[in-house]
Structure formats: structure tokens, C-alpha cells
């Protein structure tokens, strides 16, 4: 053992002392940056280029009439706050797991998943509402870029919720002790990243008109 410690000053098993899975997650998140970056770039390039409505924001048509925008800022503000809270609960969940606090782990991770689900609920509501207002994937550029961008994000949230529920089940079974806290940390990284993507989408799509 002593020889090991000498040869690997930081950790036993990797050159840098960093956990390989954590490094992989960060690298993956880096790759996701370009995935969402390209979606956002497309949204921004096509911004305001829809030939027909429905439009995201209040728009004055060529003939001078004013049409309402589709986006519902108060509603989305609420769902944005929900997602922010989920990030807070996520770190609290991680702290609970690290403490070995089983009830805390179950509770906070569960709450995070719940917040994610509520966000998805908001999004499902928003999508159906827009759909009824006549915005489909094929109605105009706004429809295509909006549904693709927020849909990709929503799909990530969905995966995250499933991921968190899996961890919650492990916690309930008592299989998520402090020695497994890395698993929660990784889920957290993913979750926060998805949150942070929303932090970018929200102003670009909803607030800036």
C-alpha cells in the first residue's frame, strides 16, 4: 500500500486523481454544449424570419395589424423557477447522500425528480396550447425551431427524471450510501447542466423580443 501511495500521490487508480466517470461526464457535457449550441444558433439565425404566424412575440404585420405573441411569460417564469428549485434540491440531495442521511437522500432526490416532472408538465401544457393555437412543427420557422430546441431540452429533462428516479429507488432500497455518492454527483452534473441550458434558452427565446 505504501508503495502505491508513493507512486500515486493523489488517488490510487488514475493519473490525475480524478474519477474517470466524472471526467467522462464533464466531457459529455462539453459535447452537449455544441448540441444545444447548434440548436440555439439555428433558432437565433431563423429568429424573426417566419413568413406566417403564429409568432412568438407581438408582431406588426405588413398590413399594419398587430397580432398577439404566443409565448406566455408568467407561465414560463413559473416553470423556470421550478427548474431552478430542482437544481437546489439536487445539491441538497447530494449533500444528504454524502452525509449518509437516507431519508434526506430519498426526499431531496425525489423532490428534484418531482420538480423536473412539474417542469415537463408545464411544457406539455405549453406545447398542447401552442398546438391548438395553430403552431405545429410545420407551420413556420418559429414552430420548427421552437419545438426542436425546447423539445430536445425537454427530452433531456425526461431522461434526467428517469435517472433520478432510478437513484431514488436505490436510495429506498438502502443501496445509496455515502460510498455511492459519486453516482449522485454525476446525476447532479447532468441535471444542473440541463438546468443551465434552460437558463440560456429562457432569455433568448422568451424574454428578448
Amino acid at each position, binding site marked *: 500500500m505504501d508503495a502505491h501511495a508513493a507512486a500515486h500521490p493523489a488517488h490510487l487508480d488514475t*493519473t490525475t486523481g480524478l474519477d474517470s466517470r466524472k471526467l467522462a461526464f464533464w466531457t459529455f457535457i462539453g459535447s452537449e454544449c455544441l*448540441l444545444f449550441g*447548434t440548436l440555439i444558433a439555428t433558432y437565433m439565425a*431563423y429568429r424573426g424570419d*417566419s413568413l406566417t404566424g403564429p409568432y412568438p412575440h407581438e408582431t406588426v404585420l405588413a398590413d399594419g395589424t398587430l397580432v398577439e405573441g404566443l409565448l406566455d411569460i408568467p407561465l414560463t417564469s413559473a416553470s423556470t423557477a421550478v427548474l431552478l428549485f430542482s437544481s437546489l434540491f439536487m445539491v441538497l440531495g447530494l449533500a444528504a447522500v454524502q452525509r449518509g442521511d437516507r431519508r434526506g437522500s430519498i426526499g431531496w432526490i425525489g423532490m428534484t425528480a418531482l420538480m423536473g416532472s412539474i417542469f415537463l408538465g408545464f411544457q406539455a401544457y405549453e406545447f398542447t396550447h401552442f398546438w391548438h393555437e395553430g403552431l405545429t*412543427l410545420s407551420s413556420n420557422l418559429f414552430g*420548427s425551431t421552437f419545438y426542436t430546441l425546447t423539445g430536445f431540452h425537454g427530452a433531456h429533462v425526461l431522461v434526467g427524471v428517469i435517472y433520478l428516479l432510478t437513484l431514488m429507488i436505490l436510495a429506498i432500497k438502502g443501496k445509496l450510501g455515502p460510498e455511492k455518492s459519486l453516482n449522485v454527483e454525476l446525476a447532479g452534473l447532468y441535471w444542473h447542466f440541463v438546468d443551465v441550458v434552460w437558463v440560456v434558452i429562457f432569455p433568448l427565446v422568451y424574454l428578448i423580443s
Partner: protein
Amino acid sequence: MATTAAEIPVAAPPKEETGVWSWITTVDHKRIGIMYGVVAFIYFLVGGVEALLVRLQLAVPNNDLLIGDLYNQMFTMHAVTMVFLALMPLTVAFFNFIVPLQIGARDVAFPRLNALSLWLIVFAGIFINASWFLGLVPGMGSQAPNAGWFAYANLTTLPYSPGLNMDFYVLGLQIAGLSSIIGAINFIVTIINMRAPGMRLMRMPVFTWMTLVTSVLLATAMAVLTIALTQLMFDRLFGSTFYDVSKGGDPMLWMHLFWLFGHPEVYILILPIFGMVSEVIPTFSRKPLFGYNVIVFSGILIGWLGWGVWSHHMFATGLGPIADSFFAVSTMMIAIPTGIKIFNWLATMWGGSIRFTTAMLFAISFIAMFTIGGISGVMHAAAPADLQQTDTYFVVAHLHYVFFGGTVLGLWSGIYYWYPKITGRLMNEHLGKWHFWLTLVGMNLTFFPMHFLGLHGMPRRIYTYAEGLGFENMNFAATIGAFMIGIATLIFAWNLFRSWTKGKLAGPNPWGAATLEWAMSSPPPVYNFAEVPIVRSRLPLWEADATLAEGIPHGKADEDTDTVTLAGIEIGEQHYPDDENKMSTHDLGIHLPPPSYWPIILGFSIALFFGGFIVHWGVSIVAALMVAGSMFMFAFEPGHSH
């Protein structure tokens, strides 16, 4: 994960399994590397046969071998096969086999994900090529992708490409892209995290360095392609309007996104080669690489600059003078770091005692041919001149000088160089020389005249040309040249095949090379290093002994006994002078991850998911469930770290 488990007392290293099933379930980076190589080489032959058919059609004017759409399928599949199914996987084969050995690791960081990458690319290849075989279905023609390798929208949207052709392209590349991203993440982590003690970043072999840079490009650029493909796929399948002009969609967005991926992609195909020749040239010049630091940094710089030049493929699209100027100048700037590399390789050879092995010949010819391709690239970068050159055979000449004269020649060099490490046997040098000279002459005969064809006004991607325009002779010469490459490739294939069992035994370090992979037996044992080496210099096999011998020592192969010595010491049993700092074998049980069949099942499910969009959406739903299920099994499989 792989190099620990000191608690488990394992006496004997695990025996190597044999049989087909052991290959299908293997997670050993060396076997995965070999499979990558074999599959990719087969696809090289397929892409080559497609090229030969293209050349046959163009051999004489007004030919009628492949007319219209069939020709278009042929050249598109030639390019798609060569780029995505042959050359990229071939470089990945080397990442797999060589990089863990070079950094003294027992395997890659995530062996099962590595296997997943392999199976994904295998299925992607099968999927894309299945489009040919729809021609066998009565009443249906072959449905291979037919809009060129960059598949410009809106030609590729449903109204203008109603067949399945572009669905195969879009979905197939999605699978291939996934394979690349997963593989890239794996290699980034491996290189950062799995290096042997003492293998500092600036001691890493250049090939490992370039693998790292390439992987970063892959992990980022492929994500851009993924989204572009998704948009096109949504347009085709779900009626979105990204490229629907009647709804305001802009075909130029596709061009931007494709080339945002496409230009980093061409560097993805050349940077690993820069790494390979940086190993080959010093070895056969018996001199350390000249300007190691500069070579590494210029490689990083090329990767970075490569992101800021994409619109040089779009000079004729009317971006306006400001954008044109920006992209022209940024493109030209890449000539500087690339030139630096070229000069450093030349300086490495300067004054060295050069051995003209086949590997070295290919490496030297790589420098020459790539420089020609690079110079024609700079000619393209001069935007006003490019307005004449673009979309003509001049571009075809440029791209083959860099792809064939660059990537392929470099890969062949790498194969001759590392083949003995991989198989334990040397390739036949006599056949190798034939292969080399035929390839070199053949490629110049094929591709050099294309410069002039382009300047004389022959557009690319035309299935026929009229008589009397002055294109006849050069096209005929190109076709002859292509068949010379064909013959050379057959010789090569035979050499590869025969040397596997009949080649001369190589021993650990037949070339007297300096890097770690040569410190072990050939082929290496499953567990690679019996004990994790401690690295003290950039050229461990040369400089460990530098104190013992004058100047730079180099390995000598003893023809009779098949042993190799370096400055009087057998390299296989190479020991470092200060043994006490080293972990001893007794402490170290070797724990290798068990084989797993989840990679191939997961890979198949993913491919099936995408394939379902062509067959029936129900298939995709079932496949999605399979993906989810096998991901859980994958994640919770015993014997692997979670």
C-alpha cells in the same frame, strides 16, 4: 479501475479466450482495435471498388456504364464510405490498439463503451450499405444516398429527394456519429486519466497527443452534425420547415452547419496521421523528433483554427466581401502551423541515418503528397480564384491529395509500422515496396491530372462529359491510375493476410523504436504491461539507456534468433535502473473486466431504433424500449465499475 484491485490475489494472468463469441463479447482494446481495422479495411475496398466504377464511367466521353442517378449514388457512396466507414474507423483502430500501450495503460477508461462504439459503426456501415440491396427487391431500384457527401438541402428534402436514399444517409450518419462521440469521450478520458506514472502530458508520444486533439474535435464537431442531421430528418419525416424554402427556410443554413462540422472533420482525418508519421519518421531516422513541443502545439492550434474557416466551402454562395475576406484569411493562416510541422519532420530526417523501410517510404511520400494537397488548399483559400476552382475537378484533386496522399498514405505507413506489434509478425518488405511504388505512381497518375481538368472547366459530380472539350486524355489517364492503385491495394491486402501467419517473427521492438508500446512482447499479452511502467522520459526506450551508451542508441533485430536488442539489452525485458521505485508484481493482481454482450445488444438496439424510421415507426418504439432496457443492464452489469 483497471490497474488496481491490489486486494485480489490473482496468481496467473488471465488466459486469452478464443472463438467467435469471445470476439463478439470482448472488451479488450486490442481486439476491438483489430476488429475496427478489419472492418474499416473491408470498407476501404468497398469504397475503392465504387471509385473504380466511377472512374470506369468517366474513362471515355459519353460513356453509359452508370447513368444519372446511379452514378450519383456511386460517387456519394464512395465518399461516404471512404470518409465515415473506412478512414475514420481505421484511425480509430490505431487509437484503440496503440494509445493505451503508448501511455502504459491496461485498457481504455471504459472498455464496454469502447465495444459499443465498435458495434455502432459496424451497424452503421451495414445499414447505409443495405440501401444498395433494395435494388434486389422487385420493382425497386437501389436506394443509396445520392446527393453527394455534403447532401446540400433543399435538394435533400422530401419534395426533391422522395426516395429512401437520403433517409439512409441521415439515419446512417446519425448512428456513425453516435459511435464517434462515444469513442471520443472514451479516448479523452483515457488519455487524461489512464497514463502510467511519470507519463506527463509533455512526455506523451505525438500520436497520443494527436489522438487527444482529434477526440476533442470529434466530441464537439459531431454534435453539430447530429443537429444538422436531426433537422433534415425532421424535415423529411415530420414535416418541419428548416429547409423548406416556401416557409422561409434557408438552404444556406445547412451549408453552414454541415461545414461547421465538415471542416473540423477533415482535420479529424489528418491529425491522427500527423501523429503517426511523427512516430515513424524519428524511428527510421534514428533521431528524436525535431521540435516536439512545436509539433504538439501546432497540432492543437490546427484543431482550434479549424473551427473558424468553414465558409471557405461557400465562397460562391454570396456571403458578401466581409465574410469572404474573414474566411479566406483564417483559412490561409492554417498553412502556418501545418508548414511548421512539415519543416520539423524534414529537420528530423536531416542528418539522420535513414532506413528506407516501407513504413518510412510511405511516411516520406506522405509529406510530399500532403504538401501538394495543402498548397492547392491555399489556392482554394484565395476566394476570387476559388470562384473558378470551386465545384470543379480542382477540388477533387485537392481533396484526394489530402485524403489519399495524406490520410491513406499515412495510414499505410502506420500499418507497416505497427503491424508487427499487433500481430507479432513483420509484413513482407518486398511486397511492401511494390505496394508503395504502385500506389505512389498510381495516385499521382489518377489525381494530378484532375488539377488541370478542373482548370480546363470540368465540373465535379458529372456522370458524363462531351467529346471535344479536351477532357478525354486526362480522364483516361486518371482511370488507368486508379486501376494501378487497385492492383497495389490487392498486393497490400495479400501482404496483410499472408503475413498474419507467415510473416517473419518480429520480437518486441523490431524497429528499435522509442515509445512504450515497443517495450512489451508482440503481440502484447491481454493485460498489456505485467507491471505498470514508470516513465522517466519522452523516449523511454532510448533515453533510459542514454546513460549507458554514447549518443542515441537504437534497436537491432537479430535475424537468426528473432530477438531485438537495444544498446546490448533485450528490449522486451527492459528494466529501469532504479527498480526500488517500482511497484512489484507481487502486489499487483491483474484484474481485467469480464467480457460483455451488452455492447453489441445495445449497439444493435440503437441501430434498430434509427432503422425503424425507414421500416415502420413501430420498430422504432420497440427498439427504444430495447435501448432503455439494455442501457440498464449495461449500467448494472456485475464485474464492471459503476
